[in-house]
């Protein structure tokens, strides 16, 4: 009695689960759905079939219902249902078929309609019962044409060894396709009887079947029998593709004959087989394989040497290192390339000086220096760095950056001021990657000392990148401090550019504050500001500068900033300063991308100005298109004005099209941010 509450709880949960689950499938459901599927034919909606497939899935785990379903499906196969319906029924039996539907499917194998017989094969294909094999063997004697082929192919897939006598007879059938299929089936079955039969056959299909049989035997662990077959198939009278398969298969068996076989192939006369043998080298298990094969290298032509070197490298055997070192001096570029690349894979730190020596001439050396994983490689490359200058030093710095070599920043700090431009450039680039925000003060000082314009650009990028990665606020503090102490105009300009790339509030204040002392640089930096926060200080130049160039730069910059963050209030303010046609055109080009009625009104206002009329019309048309049928009245008025004022045919045509286009019920989209 004390368990009664638990019982109630369990009962409640079970009831809830039952209520929540899909309604159980009933026998009536099965009959109804099968009846509907039986009426299906091609050219009709396939809903009844989908319902049947769903039903099959729903019966998963319900043996009783599945049995009923299977019975109904089998019954449908005996009716006058369409081929399509029967095919679909067979597809369901493919999933759920048991012994009970096999007799029905067996009858279908001999059906006059080949497509029905094929559907029956489909249904039987993965049915595990031995009964199916028996049915298929019987079908070998009472099916013909494509149905027979389907049966043979299925027997082959099922690897039914008891069918070999029947298949052996079929190998001599006057039906060439059936004979060929039977032969192939024997290769897949690969029983002793099957192989014995194949040995008596002379057709090309028998060679392929024997090759497949050998592969099957090898997969079953019968290496000796596989080897015997492969040896037979290596006969020179057989087609190349068979001999190549036999060679590769025999090497991959991995026995004591594998290495001698590769060596013999390399010594042999048949050139076409040599790459295939080399491609198997990495699988050789013999301890002396590397040494033996390396001994063959000098006697091979260059292309095969390169292939063999790559194959030896794939063995990851340290014994190959001296071979590679020697081959780096080879006259042939392909061999050299393979050797240098190989050192990157299996080399150790001792290979570094050699690779550095090839750095100037062979790009593969750079790849290998990057790829070297051996202990001490970083130290060896750093040591090499100390003894190189110029372009090689720059290249090594790049390699060390890619290796993320610890301690690199310390090693190359002095290179930031290297008189060799390539080295300095590489060092600055390196700091951009391996540097940290903590390096910014020191790097800013170094930047102030840079005299080369090309290097300065890279240096500015590095400082800006690292400063940008430091936490706000204060990320631009070191650069602002440097700006405050700098007097050289070139240095100040450089620092202002860096601040323009960091672009936080402190940087903006510092740059704007330098407007009086460095107006040339400041207006350019502000005009390139990555966000619209620089708009107001830039607008100050438009309003107050007496320098016409600065005004134009600032005006264009303001337009650019507005394109990223459109504001009609700001456009309106700018319109007051757009006096000359060039300025109006710039303004119109930006307005054209603002799909707002206010923008359309503003653009339309310039239609009266003959100097910019066409541009105003173009902008108005673009805006009107962007409104996508919205603001119909305004668009109509504006287009009518364009038609009245503009003579350009293309613009008139576009305006007319907009007038003619039907109004949209869509709301005008909001402009992109």
């Amino acid at each position, binding site marked *: 009695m004390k368990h009664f509450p638990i019982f109630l709880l369990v009962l409640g949960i079970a009831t809830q689960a039952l209520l929540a689950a899909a309604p159980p499938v009933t026998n009536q459901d099965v009959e109804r759905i099968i009846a509907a599927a039986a009426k299906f034919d091609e*050219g009709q909606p*396939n809903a009844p079939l989908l319902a049947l497939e769903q039903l099959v899935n729903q019966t998963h785990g319900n043996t009783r219902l599945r049995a009923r379903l299977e019975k109904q499906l089998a019954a449908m196969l005996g009716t006058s249902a369409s081929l*399509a319906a029967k095919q679909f029924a067979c597809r369901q039996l493919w999933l759920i078929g048991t012994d009970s539907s096999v007799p029905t499917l067996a009858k279908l194998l001999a059906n006059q309609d080949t497509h029905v017989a094929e559907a029956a094969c489909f249904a039987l294909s*993965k049915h595990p019962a031995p009964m199916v094999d028996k049915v298929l063997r019987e079908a070998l004697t009472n099916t013909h044409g494509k149905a027979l082929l389907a049966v043979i192919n299925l027997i082959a897939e099922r690897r039914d060894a008891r069918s070999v006598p029947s298949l052996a007879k079929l190998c001599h059938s006057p039906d060439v396709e059936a004979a060929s299929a039977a032969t192939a089936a024997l290769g897949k079955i690969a029983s002793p009887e099957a192989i014995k039969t194949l040995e008596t056959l002379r057709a090309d299909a028998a060679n392929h079947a024997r090759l497949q049989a050998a592969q099957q035997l090898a997969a079953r662990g019968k290496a000796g029998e596989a080897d015997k077959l492969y040896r037979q198939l290596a006969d020179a009278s057989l087609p190349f593709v068979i001999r190549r398969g036999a060679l590769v298969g025999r090497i991959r068996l991995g026995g004591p004959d594998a290495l001698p076989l590769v060596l013999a192939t390399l010594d042999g006369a048949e050139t076409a087989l040599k*790459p295939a043998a080399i*491609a198997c080298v*990495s699988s050789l298990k013999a301890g002396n394989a590397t040494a033996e094969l390396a001994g063959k290298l000098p006697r091979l032509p260059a292309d095969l040497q390169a292939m063999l070197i790559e194959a030896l490298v794939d063995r990851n055997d340290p014994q190959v290192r001296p071979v590679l070192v020697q081959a780096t001096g080879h006259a042939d570029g392909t061999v050299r390339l393979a050797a240098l690349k190989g050192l990157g894979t299996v080399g150790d730190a001792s290979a570094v000086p050699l690779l550095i020596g090839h750095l100037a001439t062979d790009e593969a050396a750079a790849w290998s220096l990057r790829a070297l994983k051996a202990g001490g490689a970083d130290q060896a490359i750093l040591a090499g760095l100390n003894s190189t200058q110029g372009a090689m030093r720059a290249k090594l710095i790049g390699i060390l950056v890619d290796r993320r070599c610890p301690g690199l920043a310390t090693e190359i700090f002095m290179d930031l001021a290297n008189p060799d431009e390539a080295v300095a450039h590489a060092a600055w680039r390196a700091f951009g990657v391996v540097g940290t925000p903590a390096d910014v003060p020191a790097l800013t000082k170094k930047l102030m000392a840079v005299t080369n314009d090309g290097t300065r650009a890279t240096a500015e990028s590095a400082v800006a990148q690292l400063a940008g990665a430091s936490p706000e606020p204060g990320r631009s503090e070191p650069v602002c401090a440097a700006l405050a102490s700098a007097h050289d105009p070139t240095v100040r300009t450089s620092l202002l550019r860096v601040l323009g790339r960091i672009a936080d509030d402190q940087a903006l204040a510092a740059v704007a504050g330098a407007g009086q002392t460095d107006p040339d640089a400041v207006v350019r930096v502000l005009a390139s500001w990555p966000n619209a926060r620089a708009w107001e200080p830039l607008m100050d130049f438009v309003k107050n500068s007496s320098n016409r160039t600065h005004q134009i730069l600032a005006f264009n910059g303001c337009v650019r900033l507005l394109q990223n963050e459109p504001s009609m209030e700001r456009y309106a303010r700018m319109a007051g300063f757009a006096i000359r046609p060039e300025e109006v055109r710039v303004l119109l080009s930006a307005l054209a991308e603002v799909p707002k009625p206010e923008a359309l009104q503003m653009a339309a206002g310039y239609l009266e100005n003959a100097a910019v009329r066409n541009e105003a019309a173009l902008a108005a048309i673009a805006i009107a298109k962007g409104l996508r049928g919205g603001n119909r009245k305004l668009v109509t008025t504006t287009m009518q004005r364009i038609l009245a004022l503009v003579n350009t045919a293309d613009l008139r045509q576009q305006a007319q099209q907009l007038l003619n286009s039907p109004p949209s019920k869509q709301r005008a989209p909001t402009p992109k941010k």
Partner: protein
Amino acid sequence: MTALILSQRERLVKQFERTHAGWKPLRSFFSLAIDIRFPGLKMDELLKPFSRTAEDDDARCLMKEPTEQLRLARRSSRRHFLRTLTGTALAGAAGPSILPAAVLGRGGATAPSERLAFATIGLGNRNLSNLQYFLEQPDLRCLAVCDCFANRRATGKKLVDDKYGNHDCAATRFHEELLARPDIDFLLIATGDRWHTQLSVLAARAGKDVYCEKPFSLTVGEGRTLVETMQRYGTVWQCGMQRRSNDAYRFVAETVRAGMIGRLRTITTFLGPWRGSRVPVLEPMPDPEVFDYDRWLGPAPWAPYAPVRVASWRNHWNTSAGVIVDMGPHYFDLAQWAHDSELTGPLEYEGTATWFDDGFSTVPKTIEVEARYADGVRLLVRNGDKGVRLDGDEGWIHISDFGIITAKPESILRRGRPEVSWQQMGGHVRNFIDCIRTRRPTASNPELAQRAHTMAHCANICLRLGRKVRWNPQTEQFVSDDDANRMLFRTRRAPWNI
């Protein structure tokens, strides 16, 4: 007005660069379009602000030593990487990257006797694009084209003949004719999905190497048969999963493998939307010379001719398997690559789908699948804008289908990122050709491709069965699930067999 024009131009050029980065023919076409619209303005000047930098090139050197198990399968990928470095098209910015003949020691020229001859089967839109890249290779010669459609055969033949300036390219609807030609070294196969394995196997038997579009199989069993066949004949086979040879995708994989987003937790693949079809209207069989429908159907179960069936073959299980096998292998391969699990796969799949009710389609309309690897890493499969996002403990990285990479922390991108669209496949083609000469495994060799495709098939099976399935990657069987295991193999319509 100049500013207005420049603004429009920049937008167009940016759009172009994003969507068609580096594809030379399109670049030329776009240049022409710009010239027409904006006479007097130079394409190179337009593209200058968007061209790649040295930093981008360096970014490709983020290498990680592969595991011993994978070295064999991946070695050709490394070789391709190296050769790209030595090639002229370093950043892949301008068309197919071609290994200079001088690097191969051929003195800068390709002797006719060293040229490989090929033929191609299937001349739909996809293969017309593929074919351009093959025709660009100086050491190849296309001898024949094959398709069930007469008009496609004519288009393909014209493309080849125009390239070579002659009328020598043969055109046929019988692939048997190509297989029988001893002068053809390899086949470029880009037919409907149902044909891919069949033709690959036939080609291998005929001693020909194969470049085969994805999806190369419609079942796990079919795929395994292909793998074994290629091993048996020592055939060089490359799957058309060209993102394997794409610098942007490589950057993503190697970034994750280098631990730059911390420990990998979740991989989300977005396969894009899928469209429905309509109820087929049956029509009389067309003249086989115009359209050989029986051959087009190939190994798929018989169904009477209806134009909808032909146009919407990707929407029916008989001829394809929907969005998951269409885009899945590309992204699943990247997932495996980044996760360092290229020779295995997830252990369980669970998901939900909605299905079309258009009267014809039998593949999912929308999908949500979650797969789980042995180490707990989750693989999510969704519709949405195509791309892959990989989330780790310390950050994430996302690549769009067009190769645009975003990441957190941003330091991942500090060295520059390669931005290469999926459409650029010159490197993948080159890798295949090099492997034909050396007989080494390709970048998308059968085993790697089989694993990526298996994930697609397993995901599909879990959706079709409407329940969770557990998978054993070693045996390539579902665990204790007879229904699911039966779906690993389908018979083929005679006489086709593999």
